């Protein structure tokens, strides 16, 4: 049975509607519109009064969540884009191609500047190049070196230089001067929101867990629309408080929690409700995912990387550019994954091998083996696609998940 929307759930819906309408409204009033990749720091653009940021990946995820991902992908494929390309990119290119006719947010306002990066995935640069050619707007590439170990000082300095170049570019294009105070304030709103996010996530340690991974996937949305605002921090405080209250009152999303699993990959947005209901009925709770645990951390760890008053926020943003799993090598991923397994208390791991996200997925076969060896945990690999339901076989996924549960039971001697 579907769970009723909580206060934070309703607040999230309102917040998302306001965010997208706000972006459209400000663009219509003449604001300078930036399209940025998800790891490009929004706080930089909050340092300008008349600049708004849109995140195409987030819009694509929303389309997939609303069930129109494959239809939008088809539009891109009709333009010649291969079905093997990332489904976020195909949704974005497809939905733009017909003027966002089916978009749940009325699309995104036309950009004045594109800012991609190659840390989360280098394909983002190619994807944004498609828009650059189509729309004739400049494209700034944030070139972030991949981390096989802790981020190097020289890489940090290189990223900082590029942040400053980006600021100079926006200043030059808008004629507006970057306001350090506005930027600092935005960075601290984000930091407070991320603290509350970590507090929310910490309730996964409770038995039964105070949240499911599906809750955390859905609640990520403000990270891509509202970072750097007071509303961002307020929302996550509301969310964390609500979960705290529910845990105190003995209200849990999967009360009869028999199996606590970890999900390794991006959310498969088209299946969230269906899978959460299916698993809950089996007493299964996927309680954690590196995808959501990495927020507010550094590479190789899910521990909080906080911003204090004495720290330069630009430095802080540059230092955390490799946090999002994809820009990390195997050793760092295993270190972070291991800490989640130990801290949250996990019975098994679901490696979601995602055809649309090679950067996340091409490492999982070794992760699966090594996690099994080190922690003796049952694991399973299932095939998914984060936004194109045509590449997902429900039957095959559930069959494998059930085999994982049997494995866990066998390990318990049950």
């Amino acid at each position, binding site marked *: 049975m579907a769970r009723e929307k909580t206060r934070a759930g309703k607040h999230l819906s309102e917040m998302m509607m306001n965010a997208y309408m706000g972006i459209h409204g400000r663009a219509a009033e003449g604001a300078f519109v930036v399209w940025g990749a998800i790891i490009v720091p929004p706080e930089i653009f909050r340092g300008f009064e008349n600049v708004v940021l849109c995140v195409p990946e987030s819009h694509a995820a929303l389309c997939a969540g609303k069930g129109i991902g494959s239809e939008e992908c088809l539009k891109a494929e009709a333009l010649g884009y291969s079905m093997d390309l990332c489904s976020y990119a195909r949704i974005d290119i497809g939905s733009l191609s017909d003027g966002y006719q089916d978009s749940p947010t009325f699309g995104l306002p036309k950009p004045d500047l594109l800012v991609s990066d190659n840390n989360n995935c280098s394909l983002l640069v190619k994807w944004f190049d498609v828009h650059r050619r189509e729309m004739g707007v400049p494209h700034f590439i944030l070139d972030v070196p991949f981390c096989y170990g802790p981020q190097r000082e020289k890489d940090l300095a290189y990223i900082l230089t590029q942040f400053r170049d980006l600021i100079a570019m926006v200043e030059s294009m808008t004629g507006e001067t970057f306001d350090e105070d506005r930027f600092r304030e935005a960075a601290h709103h984000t930091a407070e929101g991320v603290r509350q996010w970590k507090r929310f996530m910490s309730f996964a340690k409770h038995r039964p867990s105070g949240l499911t991974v599906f809750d955390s996937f859905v609640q990520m949305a403000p990270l891509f629309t509202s970072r750097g605002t007071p509303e961002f921090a307020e929302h996550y405080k509301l969310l964390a408080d609500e979960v705290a209250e529910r845990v105190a009152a003995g209200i849990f999303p999967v009360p009869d929690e028999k199996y606590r699993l970890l999900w390794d990959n991006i959310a498969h947005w088209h299946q969230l409700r269906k899978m959460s209901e299916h698993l809950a009925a089996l007493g299964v709770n996927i309680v954690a995912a590196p995808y959501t645990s990495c927020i507010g951390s550094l590479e190789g760890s899910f521990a909080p990387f906080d911003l204090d008053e004495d720290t330069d926020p630009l430095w802080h943003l540059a230092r955390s550019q490799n946090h999002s799993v994809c820009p990390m090598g195997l050793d760092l991923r295993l270190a972070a994954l291991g800490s989640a397994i130990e801290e949250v208390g996990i019975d098994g791991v679901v490696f979601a091998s995602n055809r649309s996200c090679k950067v996340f997925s091409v490492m999982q076969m*070794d992760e699966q083996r090594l996690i099994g060896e080190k922690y003796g945990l049952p694991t399973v690999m299932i095939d998914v696609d984060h936004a194109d339901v045509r590449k997902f076989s429900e039957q095959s996924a559930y069959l494998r998940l059930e085999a994982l549960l049997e494995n866990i039971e066998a390990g318990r001697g049950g």
Partner: protein
Amino acid sequence: MKNAQAMIEQLRKGGKPVVGCFPLYPPLELMHSMGLLPVVLWGLRDSVSDTRDADRHVQPYACSVARQLAQFVIADGPGLLDGLFFYNACDTLRNLPELLREGIACSRRITPPMFRVHVPMKEDGASGYLASEIGNLIKALQASYDVSFSEERFARSVSLYERARWLCRRLEDAVAEGVLTFAGFSAALARANFLAVEDQIALLESALADCEGSITQPSATRVIASGILPPPPVICDLIEQAGLRVAGNDIASMHRSYAFSPEVWDDVRDYYVAFYRDHFPCTTLLHTADRRVDAVVDIVSRRDADAFVFVGEKFCEYEYFELPYLEQQLKESGVPVLSIEVSIDDDGSAETFRTRIDAFAEFLSGREGRHGA
């Protein structure tokens, strides 16, 4: 051609450390100047009969380049290679180094030393950053192999590699003139890849000498071949059997690799800043995207080609992201495009491409005023 294993075995007999490199544009001149023998591990199709070891580490939706590379290094790397060098390219390849380490470790063998450089994907070349990366690489190579670096030796190595690239360009001319088949040219380059640069030069000079006095083939419909790898020999045959001649190419391991070397530079760091910044446009060098269409149109024009044939490697996202735009631009310039996709599993089924290639050739022959029409 002997397979890569046999060629590298032969190389090792010279006593110099052999460093396997990927992806396509590593600092070959630098390694050579320090007494190492770099080989680019690309296009290992003929040297890998299956991918059974790689399949334990890399999903089947990675491209054949990555899977065959992984198979080669895991199965044969420890016995053949004294080092591995990587720089950042696509998402799959940047994930590979540790997977190769794990693959080798699973069979209880020792992984050769690994060297990594981050090549800036910036139009301005990010010269300070790259200079520091090159400096670090020199130190790491010195420490691992007890070798030294000198600018004089580096300049000599640059001259040798430029000579090899120049010979490749002349052989490409010979293909365009019809005195050398594209399949023959492609095979020569594949062989040269696993030779020391001095031997590459001898091989390419000999191939060029063989072209002199050869009879020019009758005029044919001229096409430009493009892709991350040369088309498999069986597809080259189908192209020729259809009456098409590959008169030029935009192939990553061919023209994109030998088209450019910096002419003016101050030192090793300056050389590589220019090398990567001004490189012939390639889908794998993100900052060159703006120049790519013009560069491809220029090849079509210089080679007086009638059409463009893209032979794509399945799952090569870099190539497939750019293809629709490139195709559109070429068609708008009056250049027909045939796009076919090959995958690791296609070896026995290349005949399925015959109908498409024949139909394309017929279409081209029906156009007025074209070569061979």
